[in-house]
């Protein structure tokens, strides 16, 4: 009994149960619609794992949402709901694109410059939200939604402006190749590179057919940074105190307002970093006219919640989400079931993540009952 209770109390147990429930509900929906669930899941998994380039694409897809998830999870730990990750991502993409296009230094200077300009723009966008909350008490959800739309229109304005619009396209001019953060961008298409790769089939497929880049490494580093900041630093102690009880933190001499601004600056920087890695690391290396939100930030919300707002958990939840998004396309291609089943599945997983939060509480009750019985 105690052993069961111990397992049930672990957060990972709830998450796994939620994922299983997500698959179960998706299976029921597919079966009800007249599709074979096992064929669908077969297509999903082979769409994720069957070729090296698929795995590479899943990781590429997971990169931005892992970083925006970190942005959301970090703010959530400080008691702030960063629904503005979407806007911070967009504005980061605009900044990275513009700086990468206007400047053309050697990569050693160019790459940090482009990446950091995206980070700075995201931080600014998040920081304003934090400032408005700290200074005027305006709800961060309200300002976040407004700033998402402002970023959306700024992006479209830049794309359509005479200075940056590439003729006969719906996009801005791409960044200069010196900004690229793919793995060996020049070598892999050179004669020497092609000669070496000839002997390595998997490596060749991954390098030449996908934009394999340094983004996910950066995302892992960012996750470790956020974890260290939250759990291994004095500042993190302050931040979590603000998240747990604002009044108590204030009473203990922690400046709540200052910490709110710092939190939103960092959260915005993480979302901006997500955009920088996409612009520098994946084709087409530029921003396009948006007709609707691309959900890089909004998906980060889901990833963060699947991860239970744990920074390290975001890496795995990001990969799961990226895998479902990417592999889900092959469900439609192979068995004809609408690919939206993936959205239903992800939504269900998130829903059950909310529901299964009750499990650790039940485990405590189970444990108490066990002790009670033992006492008898």
């Amino acid at each position, binding site marked *: 009994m105690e052993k069961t209770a111990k397992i049930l109390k672990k957060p990972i147990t709830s998450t796994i149960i939620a994922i299983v429930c997500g698959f179960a509900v998706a299976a029921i929906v597919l079966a009800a619609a007249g599709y074979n669930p096992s064929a669908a899941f077969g297509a999903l998994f082979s769409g994720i794992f069957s070729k090296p380039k698929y795995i590479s694409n899943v990781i590429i897809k997971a990169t931005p949402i892992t970083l925006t998830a970190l942005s959301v999870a970090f703010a959530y730990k400080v008691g702030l709901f960063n629904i503005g990750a979407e806007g911070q991502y967009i504005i980061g993409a605009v900044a990275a694109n513009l700086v990468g296009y206007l400047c053309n230094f050697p990569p050693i200077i160019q790459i940090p410059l482009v990446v950091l300009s995206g980070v700075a723009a995201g931080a600014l966008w998040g920081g304003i939200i934090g400032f408005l909350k700290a200074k005027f008490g*305006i709800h961060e959800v309200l300002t976040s939604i407004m700033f998402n*739309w*402002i970023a959306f229109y700024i992006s479209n304005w830049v794309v359509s*402006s005479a200075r940056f619009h590439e003729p006969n396209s719906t996009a801005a001019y791409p960044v200069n190749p010196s900004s690229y953060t793919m793995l060996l961008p020049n070598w892999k298409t050179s004669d020497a590179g092609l000669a070496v790769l000839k002997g390595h089939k998997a490596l060749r497929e991954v390098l030449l057919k996908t934009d394999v880049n340094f983004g996910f490494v950066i995302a892992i580093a960012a996750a470790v940074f956020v974890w260290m900041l939250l759990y291994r630093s004095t500042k993190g102690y302050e931040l979590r105190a603000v998240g747990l009880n604002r009044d108590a933190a204030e009473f203990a001499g922690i400046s709540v307002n200052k910490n709110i601004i710092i939190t939103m600056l960092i959260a915005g920087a993480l979302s901006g970093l997500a955009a920088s890695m996409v612009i520098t690391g994946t084709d087409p290396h530029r921003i396009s006219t948006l007709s609707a939100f691309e959900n890089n930030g909004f998906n980060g919300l889901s990833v963060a919640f699947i991860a239970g707002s744990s920074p390290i958990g975001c890496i795995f939840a990001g990969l799961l989400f990226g895998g479902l998004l990417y592999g889900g396309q092959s469900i439609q291609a192979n068995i004809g079931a*609408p690919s939206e089943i993936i*959205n239903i599945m*992800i939504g269900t997983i*998130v829903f059950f993540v909310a529901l299964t939060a009750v499990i650790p509480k039940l485990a405590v009750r189970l444990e108490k009952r066990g002790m009670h019985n033992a006492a008898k």
Partner: protein
Amino acid sequence: MLLNNLSLLIGNTFMYSAPLIFGALAGVISERSGVVNLGIEGMMTVGAFVGAAVGYFSGNAWVGFLLAGIAGGLFALLHAVASVTFKADQTISGIALNLIGPGLALFLCRLTFSGATMTQPVPHKLPKILGGAQRNIVAQNFNFDITVILAFAAMIVLWFVLYRTKWGLRIRSVGEHPAAADTLGINVNRTRYGCVITSGILAGLGGASMTLAVIQQFTPTAISGQGFIALAAVIFGKWTPQGAYGACLLFGFAQALSVFPGLAHTSIPPEILAMMPYILTIVVLILFVGRSVAPKSDGLPYEKGVR
């Protein structure tokens, strides 16, 4: 000419605000009872699809409108189960609904409309208040969709219920201090269930007023962000029906301005015009509105016996 332009602007403002108003009222009723509803977007999308699909197959827009409300209410039941019975994190549950709702709507759309992500146009939209097309341009611009009137009526009814009836007093007390309400014999859980389901019905109607009045069919972008704008309007309007209504009119005006032909040949880029309302909102908040304080127990699950 001026009169024509002005009436066009006003007409479009009301047209675009109607779906937002339903969505915002959905947020108000849920949050006043203490349940944060971030799932308005998802609920509106479900309503938008059901409204258009039923409107198409039955040929009667009113049947579509009605069923959209019912579908929204049923969908909201998920949120109620999670946030009231399971005492789950309401933010997470709401976000989940925003994923499931559009997913389900598009999934069903592809199944019923042979793989297409949009429904066929409905044969008849919901009626306009003056009936068919008007010869006079001004009259035509003021020939509002019936949903504009319904949205106004819904705001009045919700205001009346919340502030002038015992039911409203109960809802508000449950949202502010559920433990105190409980000791007075009010069933906190049942009240919250009722409010969340009503919230879903309103959001569903909001979605349908998009696809049965503003446009004539369901498309993947029919509901794109309206639910979040509605959410912003709830906070902007300080969780009151009348405040949220006013905020929605501002956002509707914004949208009307961005499609206003009179501004097409000015030197201001259309994107800058389109973002003005959001900037204006922030300015208004800083200068006049200030601190927005949610109902005291908004977002907190109620557990008996816990102080």
